[in-house]
């Protein structure tokens, strides 16, 4: 039972990071119908900025602020430069554009920074472990769980209590009508990208805090997982993305813990098979909702 609880904490921590990433993908998808594969590079950007800020001996809190602000800015610039010109184009065009942005950023990371991992020296205080009875809770792991909870609560408040947040919920249902109320389309889209950048930045920091280094491909796998999580949840549904993220984290951690040794290399394959099984029964995802993607 204790082992199970321990695994549950691991699942919460990993699933929370997937949930933040999936949420970032879903926020943008729900509004302009774009699956932004360059989301992973936003995450990686947070890692690099953190690495450089710490290397420059900036105070830790300032390093965190810069590391989260950079992907927010990059996401908004990305929208302005790459996605706005193709807004309203077919899903395929949008998808290919995001592949291109992702590839360009990765090449830039490789050529101007390094193809090899850059260390992110997190403060030693973060590597401790809290023992609660038989449970070992890493400090980084608890920060990860708490941060996820805080981000989810903050986003919920934003979406339900502010004009900009409500405009985003409205835009997810019917973008044309949002414009018909005098709300600026570009502002709503830019807000969505800024939020996705914020979520990617926070997830990126949590990711490098666990791994201690950042490399050009860092964002690829977690965002692929987040994409799967968003599909499990029903693309475009924000609650679904969170549910899908936690479910995927739970499946992975439990497989890691209970799968026979010989099967471990196939952990991701087994996880994806379970996902396919979910989709066989609910092809529209767990919490799918019809989205209107007209502009």
């Amino acid at each position, binding site marked *: 039972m204790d082992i199970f609880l321990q695994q549950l904490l691991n699942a919460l921590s990993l699933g929370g990071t997937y949930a933040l990433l999936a949420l970032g993908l879903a926020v943008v998808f729900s509004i302009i119908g774009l699956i932004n594969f360059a989301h992973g590079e936003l995450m990686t950007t947070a890692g690099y900025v953190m690495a450089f800020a710490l290397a420059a001996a900036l105070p830790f809190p300032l390093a965190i602020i810069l590391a989260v602000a950079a992907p927010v800015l990059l996401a908004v610039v990305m929208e302005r430069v790459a996605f706005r010109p193709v807004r309203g184009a077919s899903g395929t065009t949008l998808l290919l554009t995001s592949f291109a942005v992702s590839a360009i950023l990765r090449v830039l990371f490789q050529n101007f920074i390094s193809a090899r991992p850059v260390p992110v020296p997190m403060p030693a205080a973060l590597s401790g472990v809290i023992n609660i009875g038989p449970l070992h809770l890493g400090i980084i792991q608890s920060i990860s769980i708490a941060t996820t909870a805080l981000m989810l609560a903050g986003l919920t408040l934003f979406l339900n209590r502010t*004009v900009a947040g*409500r*405009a985003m*919920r*409205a835009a997810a*249902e*019917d973008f*044309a*009508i*949002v*414009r*018909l*109320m*005098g*709300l*600026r*389309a570009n502002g709503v889209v830019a807000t969505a990208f800024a939020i996705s950048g914020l979520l990617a930045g926070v997830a990126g920091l949590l990711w490098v805090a666990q791994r201690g280094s950042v490399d050009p491909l860092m964002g690829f796998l977690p965002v692929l997982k987040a994409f799967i999580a968003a599909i499990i949840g029903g693309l475009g549904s924000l609650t679904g993305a969170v549910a899908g993220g936690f479910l995927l984290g739970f499946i992975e951690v439990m497989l890691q813990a209970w799968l026979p040794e010989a099967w471990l290399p196939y952990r991701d394959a087994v996880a994806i098979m379970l996902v396919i099984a979910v989709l066989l029964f609910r092809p529209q995802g767990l919490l799918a909702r019809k989205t209107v993607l007209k502009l």
Partner: protein
Amino acid sequence: MTSPAPLLDVSGLTVSYGAVEAVRGIDLTVAKGEIVTLLGANGAGKSSTLNALVGLAPRRARRLAFSGQDIAHLPTEMIVRGGMTLVPEGRRIFPTLTVAEHLLLGGAKHAGRGPLAETRAEMLALFPILNERLDQKAGSLSGGEQQMLSIARALMSSPDILLLDEPSLGLAPQIVDRIFALVSDLRSRGLTILLVEQNVALALEIADRGYVLVNGRIEISGSAADLMASAEIRDAYLGA
């Protein structure tokens, strides 16, 4: 006598969706304080015309002026902020947003809480039913209530001219009567209205003038009384 420039002044308006030309160079004016109706069979291009006026459909025109200002290249949000808005066909409410949220967003162009609260109070006086449903999700409202919400949401931007696209669609007769009474009432408060309606008899009853669209072209136009008396309209739409 020189008549003042019309509030809405359109000539040579064309709407094409790729190869499909839905509206083919129409001329249309609406003077301040008028109710003008745009009639025509399904697919004639009525919705395309209204959508094009607010910039939601691809448009070309020789002249597209509102309040004397050229709006041909303005995006929808700027046209709405300038005082022209549309109640779209099929209501297009946001099912998961509450009634109160619709009113809040509808009034997005008002700067400051004062004017917003004032307009909102006006709307709730005009549509008491919405006051009872403020915290309800719009998707749970009846069809008639959704139509009222759609109109209230549009009116929250305090427009000078309201474009209404088939407000009676799919509603019970007594609700339709209430909506038409409301449209007349809005006009008597100084609002200018361009109304698209399938119910030709009702529309001509409250309108001052009308246009009949056939395959994207205006075939007949005139005062409501003349149109009502016209043999063509009787045969085609009034079934008399």
